[in-house]
C-alpha cells in the first residue's frame, strides 16, 4: 500500500532506509527541522542544516522515487537560547520560497519553559507573516500533557490561527482529545519506548476516528523505525480494519493536510499507482 510519512528525519538515516521505505510503498516524506543531539552554537550551523534539508536530502530521496519535502525552524530543544533563536528566525525567510519547503516546523515546547514558549510564539508569528503551514512538536513523556495544553491554549487564543493549517504532532491518549476538539490536525507517532506503538495508535483511531489524523515514524538518530507506517498498516489489517480506511489514514489524510501548501504535489504516476 502506498503511503506518505509526514515526519521523518532522513538526514539521520542511511540510504538503505530510503530503499526500505520505497520498497514498502512510501511515495513522499516530509522532514521537519529538529535537534542534532547537541545544541548548535551559531545561526550559520542552522543555515548549513537548512541547505542540507532543501538541497541534498531531496536529491537523495529522489533516487528512490520518494518526494522529499521539509519544514524549517529552530527546534524546541534549542528554544531556550533566545539570542540564537532570534538569529535563526532572521535567516529562515530566505529559505521559505524553496519549492520543497512546506512551512514552519517542528516548533513547540520541550521542557516547557518561558523562553521555549517565547521562541514558539516567535515562530508562529513568522508563519503567520509568510502564510506558512505549521507543524508542531509536543513534548516528551511527563512533559507532554502540560506542553500540549500550553500550546493548544496559546494557539486557540490567537485569532490569526486557522486550526486546519496546523498539525499538532506526537499526540497520545491524554492529549489527542484537546487537539482534535480545537480543530487542529493530530499526528500520531509510531516510535518505540517514548511515543506510541502501532497497537495504541489504532486504539486512538478506533476511539477518536480517522478525520484530521495522520501517522508517522518520526525516525531519527535514536532507536526508531523508518518503516513504522508499514508496520501500522500490517497491524491495522490484523485488527480487522478495511484497506479503504487504512489508505485514508496513511495516504489521503496526509495529502489533504499537505495540499494546503501550493508547493505540495503528488506526481501523476504516484497518484495513478494501484491503491492497495
Amino acid at each position, binding site marked *: 500500500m502506498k503511503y506518505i510519512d509526514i515526519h521523518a528525519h532522513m538526514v539521520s538515516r542511511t540510504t538503505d532506509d530510503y530503499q526500505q521505505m520505497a520498497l514498502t510503498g512510501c511515495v513522499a516524506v516530509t522532514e521537519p527541522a529538529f535537534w542534532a543531539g547537541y*545544541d548548535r552554537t551559531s545561526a550559520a550551523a542552522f543555515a548549513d542544516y537548512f541547505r542540507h534539508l532543501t538541497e541534498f536530502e531531496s536529491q537523495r530521496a529522489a533516487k528512490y522515487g520518494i518526494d522529499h519535502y521539509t519544514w524549517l525552524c529552530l527546534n524546541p*530543544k534549542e528554544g*531556550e537560547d533566545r539570542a540564537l533563536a532570534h538569529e535563526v528566525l532572521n535567516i529562515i525567510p530566505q529559505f521559505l520560497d524553496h519549492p520543497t519547503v512546506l512551512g514552519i516546523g517542528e516548533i513547540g515546547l*520541550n*521542557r*516547557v*519553559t*518561558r*523562553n*521555549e*514558549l517565547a521562541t514558539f510564539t516567535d515562530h508562529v508569528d513568522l508563519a503567520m507573516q509568510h502564510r506558512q503551514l505549521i507543524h508542531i512538536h509536543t*513534548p*516528551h*513523556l*511527563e*512533559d*507532554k*500533557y*502540560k506542553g500540549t*495544553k*500550553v500550546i493548544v491554549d496559546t494557539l486557540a487564543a490567537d485569532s490569526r490561527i486557522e486550526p486546519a493549517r496546523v498539525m499538532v504532532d506526537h499526540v*497520545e*491518549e*491524554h492529549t489527542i*482529545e484537546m487537539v482534535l476538539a480545537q480543530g487542529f490536525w493530530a499526528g500520531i507517532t509510531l516510535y518505540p519506548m517514548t511515543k506510541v506503538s502501532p*497497537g*495504541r495508535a489504532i*486504539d486512538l483511531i*478506533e*476511539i477518536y476516528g480517522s478525520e484530521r489524523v495522520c501517522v508517522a515514524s518520526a525516525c531519527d538518530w535514536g532507536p526508531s523505525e523508518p518503516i513504522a507506517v508499514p508496520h501500522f498498516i500490517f497491524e491495522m489489517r*490484523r*485488527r*480487522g*480494519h478495511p484497506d479503504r480506511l487504512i489508505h485514508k489514514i496513511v495516504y489521503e489524510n496526509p495529502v489533504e493536510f499537505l495540499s494546503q501548501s501550493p508547493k505540495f504535489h503528488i506526481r501523476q504516476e504516484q497518484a495513478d499507482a494501484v491503491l492497495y
Partner: protein
Amino acid sequence: MSTYPGTCPLTQQQLVDTYFMEHRTKVLDLAAYLDRMERSIDRNAEADFRVVALRRALQELSSPEPGRVQRIQMLLSDPTLEPMLQRDQQNAFGAFGRRDQEVQE
C-alpha cells in the same frame, strides 16, 4: 478515554487468540523487573520517583474501570500548567516528581 463500547472490530475471543501471548510476555518482563529491583546489590532507589510512579501505575492496571491507559498517562505526567523559569535539563525523565524529590532531599 472511557469505555467506547464496540469501537474495536475484533471480538474478545479474537483479541485473546491473537494478542494473548505478546501481552503475557510483557507482564512477565514487568514482574521480573520488580523482582530484579528487590535482588539488587544495593536497594538504594526504593523511593525514586520513577519507581513510585511505576508502582502507582501497576495499581491502576488492576482497576476494573476502563480508561486505564489515560489514567496511567496522567499519573506519569506533570499536572501543572505554569512554564518553568528556565530549562533544568534537555531530556524528560518518564515520570513527574524529580523536582519535588530534590526539594525534600
